[in-house]
């Protein structure tokens, strides 16, 4: 699971959960996957991302010094930050770890890079 994907995941399908976001991320094994840097795409994706979850992911991935805690007004000309965001969002693949619902504490394991977010019938 890439950290860009992480930004889109919620646990709101659980009965009674209101927002379910951001999920609490734990990384126990990760892999670096080099991918081509496209600054335009990173910049275009930003409006769909939640910055607090971007920053949260950076903290968990030990890259917090690369990413400002508050989203800068404009980063279109800040190639260096775009590059760092690219690395954080697209080049770190979480192989093992977990996601935790912020409201219920329900744990979703990540195994072989795939989060298991299936819910039992009595949870929905």
């Amino acid at each position, binding site marked *: 699971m890439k950290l*860009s*994907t992480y930004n*889109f995941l919620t646990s709101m399908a659980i009965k009674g959960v209101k927002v379910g976001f951001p999920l609490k991320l734990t990384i126990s094994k990760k892999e670096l996957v080099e991918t081509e840097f496209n600054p335009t795409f990173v910049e275009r994706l930003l409006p769909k991302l939640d910055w607090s979850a971007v920053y949260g992911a950076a903290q968990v991935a030990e890259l917090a010094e690369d990413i400002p805690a508050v989203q800068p007004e404009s980063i279109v000309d800040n190639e260096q930050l775009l590059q760092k965001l690219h690395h954080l969002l697209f080049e770190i693949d979480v192989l093992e770890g977990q996601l935790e619902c912020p409201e219920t504490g329900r744990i979703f394991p990540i195994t072989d890079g795939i989060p298991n977010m299936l819910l*039992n019938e009595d949870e929905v």
Partner: protein
Amino acid sequence: METPHFDHLTSQDYEHVYEPAEDSFLLLDALEADLPFLNGLQPRLCVEIGSGSGIIITALSKQLANTSLCLATDINPKACDATRRTARHNGGRVDSVNCNLADVLRKRLVDVLLFNPPYVVTSDDELQCQMFGPGSAGESNLSTERNLVYSWAGGKDGRRVTDTLIQQLDDILSPLGVLYLLLLRENKPNEIIKRLDSLRFKAVKFMERRIPGEYLYILKVTRLPS
């Protein structure tokens, strides 16, 4: 658009995961035919629900290389794994999430949604029994047979899962989002088009094809201008 290689998948995989067939290829052909539209849309987030072997979302990810984020969901963990492997095998970039439909995604962010649903007409009893039989979610509890049944058993009119998705579509698609939905004639596409219209979506039969024993459609669904 290139058809991804899937020679890495074996007969053992196909005991658990739907093998690419005519319906998969029709969806690929529809996407290829609509590339001018897709290029104009400049999608940022593409999602395939029920990705199975993963060839469709992999093909799209290759086509949109480095310009779009591609995610795949499947209720079957083996399909999630197959999708991940297919993407890697073809140099595509696709993340897999094991979940039901688009339940785990934040709302109204998906620009391109793909769905080749379980469309075979079966009795609802059969579907319920298969899906909610003894045991619950989780790989260890899912029998091989149940995993594969998810990929085709559609309940009454082959529409149980499709109808659920349509009901959630407003929460899934971004303002300019588009859904490509595969249907069988027995799913009553005209009824679905009317239903979508009442939910303020425009649906057109974008492509259709007769294959041995089945007549297939691709519906292209967008929001009606408000």
